[in-house]
């Protein structure tokens, strides 16, 4: 089995890049608003379904369909922030967590109503290319595209954060709400932008996974469960951490699953998570805070 290691590493990293997209989506929201978004799975499935509808129902060309889905993501992100989270802004943390869970259930109902509980699949060869063989290592075009789109998204995100004013303000808000307000930053706008960005990342992940596999309200949202350990590995407050965490989860899942037992691969990320929590509770890239009274 050891001869298969290169294959597992490559597949793990490519799939991990999609997990990373989801993890970054969670971290973005957490950094800016301190809310852990448990609805991320449903939001990404919704994004996948939007893509699906544009492609299969209305026969848009792919680029237009993606654009359309991203527009829908913008609308969704905005609505979620405005209708669900802003009214609860001053409530306790658990109440808000509960709200994201309830939002998830509601979205699942909505998806069942619009797209029913049956699986749907994208037409194949929507994206060009085919499986590439490098020696014994096979890389499917779905996975290569997933990796490419994930990397592009991270680059775009990095550019957005480092080079644009809005990105800068988002970074400022994620550090200190009060100070940002004092500096004239409109934090409600920043919150809305954060949610929109998070949903956009989710939509991309939903499309990539949906295209690679298929979509159903019952299992697509569960992809988010892969991102939770990734987020904690990286530390809840680090985007770089989430990125690395996603790759690590993909990698460990594939390697442990491949070399030992695929079933063990499923939970290996969580076992590792427990170990990380024991050794370095703030995650690999997290911040240690000095508590004062």
């Amino acid at each position, binding site marked *: 089995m050891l001869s298969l290691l290169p294959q597992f590493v490559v597949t793990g990293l490519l799939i991990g890049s999609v997990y990373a997209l989801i993890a970054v989506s969670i971290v973005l929201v957490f950094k800016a608003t301190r809310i852990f978004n448990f609805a991320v799975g449903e939001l990404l499935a919704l994004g996948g379904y939007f893509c699906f509808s544009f492609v299969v129902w209305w026969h848009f060309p792919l680029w237009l369909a993606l654009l359309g889905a991203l527009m829908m993501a913008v609308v969704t992100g905005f609505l979620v922030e405005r209708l669900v989270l802003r009214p609860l802004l001053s409530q306790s943390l658990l109440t808000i967590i509960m709200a994201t869970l309830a939002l998830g259930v509601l979205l699942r109902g909505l998806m069942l109503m619009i797209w029913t509980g049956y699986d749907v699949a994208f037409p194949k060869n929507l994206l060009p290319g085919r499986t590439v063989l490098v020696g014994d290592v096979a890389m499917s075009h779905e996975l290569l595209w997933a990796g490419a789109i994930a990397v592009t998204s991270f680059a775009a995100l990095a550019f957005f954060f480092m080079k644009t004013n809005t990105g*800068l303000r988002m970074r400022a808000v994620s*550090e200190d*709400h*009060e100070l940002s307000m004092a*500096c004239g*930053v409109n934090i409600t706008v920043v919150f809305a932008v954060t949610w929109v960005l998070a949903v956009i990342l989710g939509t991309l992940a939903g499309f990539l996974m949906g295209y690679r596999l298929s979509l159903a309200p019952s299992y697509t949202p569960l992809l988010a469960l892969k991102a939770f350990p990734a987020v904690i590995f990286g530390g809840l407050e680090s985007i770089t951490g989430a990125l690395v965490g996603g790759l690590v989860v993909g990698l460990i899942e594939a390697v442990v699953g491949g070399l030992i037992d695929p079933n063990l691969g499923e939970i290996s990320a969580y076992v590792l998570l427990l170990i990380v929590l024991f050794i370095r509770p703030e995650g690999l890239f997290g911040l240690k805070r000095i508590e004062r009274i």
Partner: protein
Amino acid sequence: MITILAVNQVEVFYHKVIQVLKGVTLKVNDGQVVALLGANGAGKTTTLKAISGLLRAEAGEVTEGNVVFRDRRIDRDLPHAIARQGIIQVLEGRRVFQHLTVEENMRVGFLGLGGEEEAGRILQMIYDFFPRLSPLKDRVSGFLSGGEQQMMVIGRALMSNPKIMLLDEPSLGLAPLLIDKIFEIVHRINQEQKTAILLVEQNALAALEIAHYCYVMEDGRIVMDGLAEKLQHNEDIKEFYLGLNSVGTRKSYREVKHYKRRKRWLS
């Protein structure tokens, strides 16, 4: 002299229960430095937050009175809207965005008025004010020394071309030489940029040296005010800081006890 900022009989409650300001009235004239002195917990910071709108973020609200800036009532505006009108508060305790670089910190303060060119111009001006910051501009600000952070924080406030700057204890926790430096710069900003400054300070004498006018607060009220030159030589100020209340005389806290007890028995 034109009054640009007027705080009129403002009362502030936190959580709708705790009253912090009990009718504060003060004004700042264009181009003036006004010092607001007082003991801890007197309500100085709350006064600044009532002006800048930051109160809301901590469940505080102005229940009575109003704040008027250039003939426009602003106490119902949101913090960012107030900042855009030219009122910038510099928070107490050298609050920096630790993970941003010095220049990024400054840019957060830039509100986008006048575009990139204007941003460059102001940045240059700030580096002129604080030559020490210029070589540090790409440094992550969490690693700066206290004095550098304070300079950066004041610089950040200048980025929005403020009409009035609300400075909250700029000397807090700084070494004396640096305190001198900071006050010199605050003075220069006022002189060269014609920015009005409302200065909250514990370091009373240093503040009075650069201030035109001064208010003294105690227990949510203004208890004394006057031209800075006059107050500077006022023995009361010293006494105030050492605990002998300038307003009337009062019993020792030790004696109060017996009086209170008796009162309770009688009632």
